[in-house]
């Protein structure tokens, strides 16, 4: 589904990624873990076109998408739930969700049944149904996170990219978020998950990549990474 080769990207003169290779297969859940500042968010931002990569190749289903503006990449089926949630605070929850389906509602992507999908989101996140007429800016952090995920899903994406869905949430909500991710995986959604909660991410993922200072240092099946002593020591807090 997604094949990233030698991706170099950064902000202005500051280069953050120095040649990253990632592959996500159809229906796979792949996680990208790493410490603060390793370049996880930058990777997702380059993949979705929020920043233009300096060089490298990004292929989605065999089509080169590197350097396209974000709205075009979204229309090709990449949904990115960005760091910090980025819901539209002045719009009601329902409108936020509809905007997730913007390319479908305006003919840039196959329409399908958006009303049924909206209903599905309200079933997946019952809290959003209760609050659907409320402005997104008035939601709690956890609710906003759910909204950001549901909004991304409304695209009916080929690839769903989640950036730190657990950030700033209480332990109970983190559990809820990961339960949702597991459910999406059962539904065969292809996902690229960026997480600081490496243990939880490797628990649900099929495959994992460890990003260190802008390069992939280790990769492998998630179960194997969980047992890798170096990964354990650095990211799973086992060495203590």
């Amino acid at each position, binding site marked *: 589904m997604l094949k990233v080769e030698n991706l170099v990207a950064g902000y202005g003169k500051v280069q953050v990624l120095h040649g990253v290779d990632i592959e996500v297969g159809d229906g796979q859940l792949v996680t990208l873990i790493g410490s603060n500042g390793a370049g996880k968010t930058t990777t997702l931002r380059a993949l979705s076109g929020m920043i233009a990569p300096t060089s490298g190749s990004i292929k989605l289903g065999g089509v080169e998408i590197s350097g396209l503006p*974000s*709205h075009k990449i979204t229309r090709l089926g990449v949904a990115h739930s960005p760091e910090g949630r980025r819901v539209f605070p002045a719009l009601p929850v329902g*409108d936020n969700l509809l905007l997730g389906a*913007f390319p479908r509602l*305006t003919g*840039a992507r196959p329409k399908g049944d958006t009303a049924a999908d909206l209903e599905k989101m309200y079933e997946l996140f019952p809290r959003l149904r209760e609050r659907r007429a409320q402005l997104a800016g008035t939601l709690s952090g956890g609710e906003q996170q759910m909204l950001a995920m549901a909004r991304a899903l409304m695209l009916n994406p080929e690839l769903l990219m989640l950036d730190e869905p657990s950030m700033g949430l209480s332990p109970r909500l983190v559990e809820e978020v990961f339960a949702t991710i597991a459910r999406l995986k059962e539904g065969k959604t292809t996902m690229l998950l960026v997480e600081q909660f490496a243990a939880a991410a490797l628990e649900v993922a099929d495959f994992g990549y460890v990003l260190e200072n802008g390069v992939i240092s280790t990769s492998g099946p998630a179960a194997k990474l969980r047992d890798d002593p170096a990964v354990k020591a650095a990211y799973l807090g086992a060495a203590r």
Partner: protein
Amino acid sequence: MQILAQLIVSGISVGMVYGVIAFGYQLTFSTSKTLNFGQGEALMLGALVGLTTINFLIGHAIATLPAFLLMLPVVLAFGLLQGAVVEFFGVRQAVKAKSDAGWIMATIALGVVFKNMAENIWGHDALRFPSPLPEAALSFGGVRVQPMEIAIVVGALLLMVAVEVFNRKSIYGKAVVATANDRDAAGLMGIDTRLVIMFSYALSSMTAAFAGVLVAPVTLTGATMGAVLGLKAFAVAIIGGLSSGVGVVVGGLILGVVENLTGFYISTGYKDVPGLLLLLLVLSLKPAGLFGAAAIKKV
């Protein structure tokens, strides 16, 4: 008492014009954090294009009121196009060059170009614009109101309501609000935010052009008619807050009425002073505008 009522009533229609132009500033500021300093010229061009169109129609034996109504779509379409031109050739290039104040210079420069063009096409003289409604004032308990003044208030409100309904109800309108809320996130929704910004400029000039043909029958039309209106509406946009639709209407009304009161009770020479004083006062006491939300960002 009657004089006071009269001053307030005539202030209201002028104030609505300020309000609707200020509303245009708001449209582009919300999506792009830039605005068209040639907004007054957009108004003037709209009025002059309207004048040529309505005279053409009247020349073909169409009565003034239907001619005015037939002219409106022409003027609105022209406004849309003119705004798109300003965005494409002025603002976009300046923003692309990563120049902080470039868009200010670019829009002012385009405004000057438009004004000179208008002087060459329509001449330097102020021209009379045929009034679609009877010019005889109606009297309400001694307070005299021109029918066109009522049309200004109704027309301006209708236009603003139409834009608001579009923003709330249609998916494209929601895309505009989303772009105003968070441009990067809007891009992630598959919204072409550059197009949205171009559209908001088009819409902004369209409101100005519409305001132009609304005031033209009560004032006069000419290449210089826009400058002062544009500037005062800018003051209104600042007073009312660049983020509040209610704010610009109230701000416009306040300015329109205060100007009229000053002109009568103090001196017509000082008519323009209170607006600017109000502007200074608001800037020093409540910089976000009377109705503006403070620019505090929740992290």
